[in-house]
């Protein structure tokens, strides 16, 4: 109902013999594994600013960024 993001959906796996030994759980139990990828603050800021400026351009506005916010380019 909330517009589930498909990239976040996973099927649970099964704990194999080696994992059971390594992690001290029962073999055959449920296993959830996910590899998270974090974005650096710099990558995030650059993408946010690019998206903002692209959106302004699409609207036909001549803008520049000031402290991360698009403001009119008046010069």
């Amino acid at each position, binding site marked *: *109902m*909330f*517009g*589930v*993001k498909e*990239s*976040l*959906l996973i099927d*649970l796996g099964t*704990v194999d013999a080696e*994992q059971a030994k390594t*992690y*001290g*759980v*029962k073999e055959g*139990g*449920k*296993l*959830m*594994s*996910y*590899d*998270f*990828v*974090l*974005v*650096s*603050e710099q*990558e*995030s800021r650059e*993408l*946010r600013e690019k*998206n903002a400026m692209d959106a302004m351009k699409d609207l036909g506005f001549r803008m520049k960024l000031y402290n991360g916010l698009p403001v009119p380019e008046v010069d």
Partner: protein
Amino acid sequence: MLQEFILLSDILGLSLLVDSIDHPKPPSSTEGTVLGPFHTHDAISEPNGTQIAHDPQGEPCLAVCTVKDTEGKPIEGVKIDIWETDSNGKYDVQYEGREQPDQRAVMHSDKEGVFWFKAIVPVPYPIPNDGPVGKLLKVLKRHCYRPSHMHFMMEKPGFDHLIT
């Protein structure tokens, strides 16, 4: 009423619209999703391998995860807040007389970017539907269930805050 407002914002997609503008994600990175009203600040910091859920009715689930940057390098020392419901689809805070946190913990990724813990298999549950938001969903003929999920909040200085 505060929770109704969050719910309304969530069901309309407004929360995630704001999140996607403030925290844009390159294609290779993990997408964010709703924080929800059930995060708390009293989860206990636990080492890797901890049993974080103690509901005897829950089906045990081993979780083994990694945290990496967009270049595939492991990130050590990420603070990871984890929370889920019990086997009835209820968070600890939804019970009266809650004495201590359960089905939640704070962990840290190790040198290889790994964190692991023992929990229970998440179950689907309805969002609170006894208020105006519940009525709205009924009028819109939408069900009020969220898919089975576990929440993760990850933070480390230098990285964009992730709630998923």
